[in-house]
């Protein structure tokens, strides 16, 4: 009796003690999360605020959280910039066509690889993994593109990256884990062809992974500039990323047309303001895309990435 009494008391004490430790731990976790949130959020807020401020406020460092002397001048000037607009147009075109081709190719590759009775599945899988690890060199790739006469065409930006082995593997895993094999059997009994099964049964069940593919390939098309640097040298065909590189990194903002710039400082301020506005505008299309696919995104990532 005596013993158990001590034991119970000890246990109770221990439980309270644990509770305290959990509390401290949870506090640390939440402080950490809050800090992470602020560190990531702050530059984003700063850029948006700077883009909405007056040029003199940006240059003099008055902006640190909210817009100072609110103005839309930066945005107005950006939309008067012809190079920027043509880049924007080109990138929208690439985003649409490129992503469509990416998704089609990835699904076409992943579907047969996901079928258990497909005898070539293992060797083909090996080939995909091989090319995921062993990427082609710049010069040999350039020569292939040149021999196919694709230089200075958008095909050069679409075809060499038409599919990524990594996403093929993820998509295949998704098909394997979320399409029940009984479905295939009954479809076959009904005499449906593989094309029909893919189009009418598999794809409608695969919205999450399609959303992941659309977002990931879309982001790549919108953001990458390297292939354009290699294959495109006509200014009017530049995608947005390459235009932005000229304007933002190489500092070729054309503000000579702005007549009312009195001092160097004012010009400098205008230039920075334009940059902030361009950063915001060029990031918006992808950020708009995200909430639409977010619903499926985590689910798709989860099902696709979990190992067999």
């Amino acid at each position: 009796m005596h013993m158990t009494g001590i034991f119970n008391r000890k246990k109770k004490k221990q439980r309270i003690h644990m509770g305290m430790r959990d509390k401290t731990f949870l506090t640390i976790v939440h402080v950490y999360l809050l800090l992470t949130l602020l560190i990531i959020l702050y530059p984003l807020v700063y850029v948006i605020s700077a883009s909405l401020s007056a040029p003199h406020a940006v240059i003099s460092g008055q902006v640190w959280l909210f817009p100072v002397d609110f103005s839309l001048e930066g945005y107005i000037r950006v939309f008067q910039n012809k190079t920027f607009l043509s880049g924007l147009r080109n990138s929208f075109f690439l985003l649409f066509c490129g992503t469509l081709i990416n998704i089609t190719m990835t699904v076409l590759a992943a579907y047969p690889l996901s079928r258990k009775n497909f005898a070539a599945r293992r060797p083909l899988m090996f080939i995909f993994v091989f090319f995921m690890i062993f990427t082609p060199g710049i010069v040999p790739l350039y020569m292939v593109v040149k021999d196919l006469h694709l230089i200075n065409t958008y095909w050069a930006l679409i075809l060499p990256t038409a599919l990524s082995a990594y996403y093929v593997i993820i998509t295949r895993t998704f098909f394997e884990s979320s399409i029940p094999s009984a479905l295939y059997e009954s479809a076959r009994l009904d005499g449906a062809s593989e094309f029909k099964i893919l189009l009418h049964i598999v794809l409608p069940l695969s919205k999450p992974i399609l959303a992941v593919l659309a977002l990931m390939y879309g982001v790549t098309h919108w953001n990458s500039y390297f292939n354009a640097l290699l294959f495109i040298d006509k200014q009017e065909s530049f995608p947005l990323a390459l235009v932005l590189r000229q304007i933002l990194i190489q500092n070729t903002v054309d503000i000579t047309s702005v007549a009312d710039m009195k001092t160097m400082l004012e010009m400098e301020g205008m230039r920075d303001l334009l940059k902030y506005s361009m950063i915001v505008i060029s990031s918006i299309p992808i950020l708009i895309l995200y909430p639409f696919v977010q619903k499926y995104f985590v689910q798709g990532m989860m099902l696709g990435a979990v190992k067999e």
Partner: protein
Amino acid sequence: MKNRPKKPSVVIRIRKEMKRNWQLYVIIGLPLLYLITFQFIPLLGNVLAFKDYRIKQGIWGSPWAGFKYFQQFFNSPQFKNLLSNTLLLSFGQLVLGFPLPIVLALALNEALSPKFKKVVQTVTFAPYFISVVVMVSLVNLLLDPHVGLLAHWLSQIGIEGNLLGMPQAFRPIYILSGIWQTTGYSAIIYIAALSSIDPSLYEAAAVDGATRFQRILHINIPGILPTIVVMLILESGKIMNIGFEKVFLLQNDMNMVASEIISTYVYKIGMVKAQYSFSTAIGLFNSVINAIIVVTVNKIARKVGEGGLW
């Protein structure tokens, strides 16, 4: 003696398979055509590295050069610098950047309010969508020695000067901006893995009186270990292929000592100076080292019993 039933010959089996699955072969035809054109043929094109390329004679007609270009690279004064710059940058990124998404995922998993969790997750994920060009120009704007906000703050704690032009600041800038941009994205995969842990394990832990911290150590981390290993293998695949795009944009004449890496050098030698064979040789060297690293890491992962990528 009875005759064992003979296995049908290979030809017959292939014919049977083709008859049964020809539709699947048709479906995968286009992707295979892609692989041949844009992956396999460029792979063969690497033979350039062993040739003295002459435009008129084409890749195959040009005379052989043996290992001349490899020797030229190994003996060049830049070789040591390029290799160490590449490795320092990738390992720095791997060592500092790899654990953070895991920590973030584990912390998010402990968050009490689902709303707070969602906000943190969404916000930390957002920078992933910012393009390299925009990211680098943001770094340039914030670190501008005259008007940059971050440069202003850093100068108050004694870090002064034009950081963008300092060789010793290049790697920290590259790595830290990378961490800012991708931690939230990389955490998603671990969040997904965490959500698939069997909840009965938590109940058992609660009965045993385990603290939350102990739960993380003994349930969560072992639970996501296979995912961590896979991600580690994938990351190790980037060691030699560390992003050309961002490094190239962050480069300037002043920080070149630290910022010139193999991939940017391959681009400049090949596409700017048009030394095709030399550039291909360097690129091939890079790919081979990279493949060796991935295969080795995968092998180690399998030996330790944590599975592997294949």
